[in-house]
């Protein structure tokens, strides 16, 4: 029973940790399937985290915060698009430039606006996406099995986490079941063919980057106004890169990418739980070791179990009509 209760808590925690990961990994997935490589996920997440927290602090409304967060990420996505689609610049350089620029600009702006040394003020409950307790969660809490599952795992998350659950099937549907998805994938594999068919490669790629920006915006917003309560310097803490790894590990496909994100989230939750626990024979595992766990696991899985990874063929290559 103890084990079951622990497992429920671990899964509950996994869902929270995985929320920003899933959103950014899916953002990256859409961009790369359309042939635009973006290692600037981290920067866009951070920018929208800042925009959301700053807006929430000023207006007191999480909805304006969400709009600002999405707006910031879409704007940066379009900037990246302009560099890599119109100007045919190097996409890695552009993405990295955005990361570095945001890491400096966000705390500087925060200091300029709020004078709190690169942070935004702590947000109160009304201006955040706070926890939603689903109907009946309290009543069912004591029912064995189902009660724990419902009241701990399903109930008690913020709105964006629930939205994320919808994002996954929606993205899969968009990519594989719609005409737009077919074109998007074609643009990432063989842009010449799409161009021959009379469809604008640039337009499809820009559209993909807008969707990308919206998803990144959600991820940043959930960081600063859902899971956290304010913007703090470098608060994305490498999650953008982890999402990138999850996307590659998931072979640019929605379901494996989702599973990869959940795995990363689970291992992170597990390492917190394992700290200070005494095991038979081994004794207590040192903190240094448990904290290594997610990264060790990533290396093992990437090196041993994933198999051949094939990126979208035109990913990272600017499309040039005239050659």
């Amino acid at each position, binding site marked *: 029973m103890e084990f079951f209760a622990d497992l429920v808590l671990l899964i509950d925690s996994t869902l929270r940790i995985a929320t920003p990961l899933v959103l950014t990994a899916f953002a990256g997935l859409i961009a790369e399937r359309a042939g635009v490589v973006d290692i600037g996920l981290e920067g866009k997440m951070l920018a929208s985290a800042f925009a959301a927290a700053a807006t929430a602090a000023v207006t007191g409304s999480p909805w304006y915060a969400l709009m600002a967060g999405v707006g910031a990420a879409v704007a940066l996505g379009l900037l990246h698009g302009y560099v890599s689609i119109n100007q045919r610049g190097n996409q890695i350089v552009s993405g990295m430039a955005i990361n570095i620029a945001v890491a400096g600009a966000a705390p500087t702006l925060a200091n300029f606006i709020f004078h709190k040394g*690169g942070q935004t003020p702590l947000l109160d409950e009304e201006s955040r996406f706070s926890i939603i307790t689903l109907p009946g969660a309290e009543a069912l809490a004591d029912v064995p099995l189902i009660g724990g599952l419902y009241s701990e795992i399903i109930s008690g998350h913020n709105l964006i986490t629930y939205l994320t659950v919808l994002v996954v099937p929606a993205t899969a549907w968009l990519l594989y079941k719609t005409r737009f998805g077919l074109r998007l994938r074609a643009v990432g594999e063989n842009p010449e063919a799409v161009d021959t068919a009379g469809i604008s490669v640039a337009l499809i790629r820009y559209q993909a980057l807008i969707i990308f920006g919206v998803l990144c915006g959600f991820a940043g917003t959930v960081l600063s106004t859902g899971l956290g309560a304010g913007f703090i310097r470098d608060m994305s803490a490498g999650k953008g890169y982890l999402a990138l790894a999850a996307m590659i590990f998931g072979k640019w496909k929605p379901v494996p990418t989702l599973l990869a994100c959940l795995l990363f989230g689970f291992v992170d939750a597990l390492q*917190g739980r394992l700290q200070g626990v005494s095991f038979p024979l081994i004794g207590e595992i040192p903190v240094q070791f448990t904290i290594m766990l997610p990264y060790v696991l990533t290396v093992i899985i990437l090196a041993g179990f994933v198999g051949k990874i094939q990126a979208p063929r035109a990913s990272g290559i600017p499309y040039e009509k005239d050659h």
Partner: protein
Amino acid sequence: MMSFVNKMAATLAVSVMATSITIAADFKPVLLYDIGGKFDKSFNEAARNGAEVFNKETGIAYKDFEPSSETQYEQALKRFARKKADVIIAVGVGYSVAVRNVARKYPKIRFTVLDAIVDLPNVQSVTFKENEGSFLVGMIAAMKTKTNKLGFIGGMDIPLIRRFEKGYRQGASYIRNDLTFVRNYVGTTPTAWNDPIKAAEMARSQYSRGVDIIFSAAGPSGLGVIQAAKEKQAFAIGVDSNQNHIAPGRVLTSMLKRVDLAVLAALRSAKDGSWKSGHTVMGLKEGGVDFSIDAHNQALITDDMKVKLADARSKIISGALVVDDIAGSNAGH
């Protein structure tokens, strides 16, 4: 006659210049923060408060610097040493190696380092008995808990933070011995001070496992613990600065580490010339550590609790009660 007037004017001009130079070059103190930044509502902010008091008292401005990574410690120290600062105050145990290196190179510059011990003739080291303050908040937690499960969340896993944990546990066990403890450390690198999301997740996990009071010694990451306490309607215990106001009614108390007093004393003594190198320890007796009671948590601490706390305090000060320590807490790492 003309030449005399000229001479007078010249002397006057020189003396005016001289005074303006002495004002400009009067006293140049520098304060270097640790990772986390000066508005962390905790350790660094306490240091800043001390310097602000000095600034109000004397009107003397101080220069400060917030490093964004460990590699900047030494660069910043060197930069201000080269500019001949009158006293450079570095807060945080992370500075110990950097201060040792730079102080050797600039033997004429005075350095004050907080939380670390550097044995050089031009360095003043100030350390705190965090375990004594933590003992008292541990007692408060033990008297307040309803689930008999207490939590601890540390920032970076270093001996200094283990010292907080040790005092906390010992203080709680001093009240009753049927308690269970759960602990987490956010990380093993300085980024652990700046990850409130992870700290909040650890706190949620602890609260869900039945912990009802968590003491966090984690700098800005601790704000995540306080936020989780608000969400779960449980208690958190703040650290370093008085954090009771951050979530009134949900912060049981704060373990105060009077970094502000240490910074203020260093600045005052450097200015009036009484600054001395060597090692000072600030415990309960010296007023270096304490716990906070204010309008926000008054109702949570009963008179009965206060009596027990006062009794333990006097025993610790007299030496009748010894709070255990962790070796190497103020050594460099």
